[in-house]
C-alpha cells in the first residue's frame, strides 16, 4: 500500500466533508478515523477508487459520531447535505486547509501538529512519535488547536508567511521517528507551490531541496556531524540540487526577493562549488547582506561574520564578530573556528571546549568537543 499517496488525499477529503456542511473539527476527526481504517484494511483489500473509499468511510464515521452525540445541529446538517454531490474544487480546499492549520492564533507547535495531521494526513500516533511525546499529549495538542481555529471561516484567505514558517519548522526541527519529517515538509511545500505562485513558497521549496540534497553527506554512519567544508560532495543528490536551483531561479526572476529566496541563494552557491575551496564566498557575503537587510536577524549577522572570514580572511571575520552579542547561539563556536583559521590554536581549543558546553544539541556538542580534542592533541605534539 502506498501510504504517501493515501496521505496526499487527506486535504481533499476533508474539503469535501466541509462543503457538505460538516464543521472543520468534525470533518478532520472523521477523515483521521478513515485514514486509520485505511491503514488497517487496504493492505489486504485495496479499493479501486481510493479517494471515493475515503469519502464514503469518512462520511460514515462522521454520521456515527454525530448520531452518538445526538446533537441537533449535526442532525440538521446531515439531513440537508446528504444528497449533495461535491463540486470539483479540491485544489482550493487544500490551500484553505494550509491557511487554517497555520492560523496566527495558533502557537507554532500547535500549527505544526495540526498541519501534519489535516494537511499531511499523518496519524496522531505518527506525529507523537516524530516529536517524542506521548500519543495522549499530542492528541490534546491537536484537539486544542482545532478548538482554537473553530471560529475561523473555512474560506478566509490567510497569510502565506505563517504557512511558510510552519513548514520551515517541520523541515528544520530534525526529530526522527518512522516518519521522515524533512521529506514530509518538502512534499507539503511542493504541494503548496503547485497551488500558489508566491515567490517565497518557491524560495522555501528551493531552500529545502538544496539542504535535503546534502543530507547523505551531513552525518557519518555513527551519527556524528560532518561540517560542510569536509562533506563528501559526491554524495550530494545532484538531481535534487538542480531542481532546487531551477525552482529558485524561476522565483528570483520575478524580482520579489524574500528571506527564503535569499537563504536558498546561499545554499545554491554552496551546492555550486565542486570543492569547499571553490566556494564563491564573496557572493555569499553579498547574499548575507541582502538577508540582513530583509530580516535584521542577529543570527544572520553571525553567519555573515563567518562568511566574511572566508572571503576576506579570519581577521576580518573576527572583526565582524566583535560587533555581535557573545550570548548569541553558536557565537563561541564561530569565534573558535575563526581563531583556528587565524593560527591561534590555544585560544581556539579553549573556545571549542566552551562552545561544546553551550551546544544546543548532542551532535553539535560532540562535534565541538572533538574539535577541541583535535587541537589539544596537535598542541601537545607541537610542544613535545
Amino acid at each position: 500500500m502506498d501510504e504517501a499517496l493515501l496521505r496526499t488525499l487527506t486535504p481533499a477529503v476533508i474539503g469535501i466533508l466541509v462543503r457538505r456542511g460538516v464543521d472543520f473539527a468534525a470533518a478532520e476527526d472523521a477523515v483521521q478515523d478513515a485514514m486509520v481504517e485505511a491503514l488497517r484494511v487496504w493492505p489486504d483489500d485495496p479499493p479501486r477508487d481510493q479517494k471515493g473509499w475515503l469519502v464514503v468511510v469518512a462520511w460514515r464515521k462522521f454520521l456515527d459520531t454525530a448520531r452518538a452525540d445526538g446533537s441537533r445541529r449535526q442532525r440538521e446538517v446531515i439531513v440537508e447535505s446528504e444528497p449533495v454531490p461535491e463540486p470539483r474544487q479540491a485544489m482550493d480546499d487544500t490551500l484553505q486547509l494550509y491557511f487554517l492549520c497555520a492560523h496566527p492564533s495558533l502557537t507554532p507547535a500547535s500549527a505544526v501538529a495540526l498541519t501534519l495531521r489535516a494537511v499531511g494526513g499523518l496519524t496522531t500516533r505518527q506525529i507523537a512519535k516524530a516529536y517524542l511525546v506521548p500519543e495522549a499529549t499530542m492528541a490534546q495538542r491537536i484537539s486544542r488547536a482545532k478548538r482554537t481555529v473553530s471560529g475561523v471561516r473555512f474560506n478566509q484567505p490567510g497569510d502565506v508567511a505563517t504557512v511558510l514558517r510552519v513548514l520551515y519548522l517541520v523541515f528544520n526541527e530534525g526529530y526522527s521517528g518512522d516518519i521522515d519529517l524533512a521529506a514530509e515538509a518538502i512534499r507539503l511545500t511542493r504541494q503548496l507551490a503547485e497551488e500558489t505562485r508566491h515567490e517565497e513558497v518557491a524560495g522555501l521549496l528551493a531552500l529545502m531541496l538544496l539542504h535535503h540534497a546534502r543530507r547523505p553527506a551531513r552525518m557519518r554512519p555513527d551519527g556524528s556531524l560532518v561540517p560542510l567544508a569536509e562533506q563528501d560532495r559526491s554524495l550530494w543528490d545532484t538531481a535534487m540540487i538542480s531542481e532546487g536551483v531551477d525552482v529558485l531561479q524561476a522565483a528570483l526572476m520575478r524580482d520579489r526577493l524574500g528571506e527564503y529566496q535569499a537563504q536558498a541563494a546561499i545554499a545554491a552557491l554552496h551546492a555550486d562549488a565542486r570543492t569547499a575551496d571553490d566556494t564563491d564566498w564573496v557572493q555569499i557575503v553579498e547574499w548575507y547582506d541582502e538577508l540582513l537587510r530583509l530580516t535584521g536577524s542577529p543570527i544572520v549577522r553571525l553567519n555573515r561574520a563567518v562568511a566574511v572570514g572566508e572571503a576576506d580572511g579570519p581577521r576580518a571575520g573576527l572583526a565582524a564578530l566583535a560587533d555581535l552579542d557573545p550570548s548569541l547561539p553558536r557565537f563561541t563556536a564561530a569565534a573558535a573556528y575563526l581563531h583556528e583559521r587565524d593560527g591561534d590554536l590555544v585560544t581556539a581549543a579553549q573556545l571549542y571546549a566552551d562552545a561544546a558546553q553551550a551546544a544546543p544539541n548532542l551532535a553539535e556538542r560532540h562535534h565541538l568537543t572533538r574539535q577541541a580534542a583535535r587541537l589539544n592533541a596537535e598542541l601537545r605534539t607541537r610542544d613535545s
Partner: protein
Amino acid sequence: MTKYLLLKHYRGAPTAVNDVPMDRWTPEEISAHMQYMDDFAARLENSGEYVGAAALSPEGTFVRFDGDGRPPVTDGPFAETKDLIAGWMVIDVESYDRALELAGELSAAPGAGGKPIHEWLELRPFLAAPETITE
C-alpha cells in the same frame, strides 16, 4: 518546542520556605498534596505539554563495570550523598518562560498547614536534535 526536566530533590536543593517533613503533615494535607500533583499532571496532558513523570525511591546503588567475565561491582547506598533526586517530570513547552511558569506552579503544591511548600525545583533543558539549516 523544548523539553525540560523538572527535578525534585530530597537533598541538595536550597531549603523550601514551608520546610516541614511530610511525616509531620496531617493525613488530609498529604491527600491535598497528592491531589494537587495529579491535577497538575492532568492539566499538562490536557494542554499538550506533558511527556512523563516518575517518583524515585531514595535508596539507590552505585554500579560499575569490573572487567570482562566479572560481575559488576556495587557500592552504596551512601547515606551522606549531598544530592538526592526524589522524582522527575518532563514537559514539552513553547518557551523557557512557559517552563518557568509551570515549575512555579508545581512548586506551589500545598504542604504543612495547607500552605504552598515553595519548594526549589531544578529546571534543565533537554539537548535537542540538530537542525538542518544552520548556515
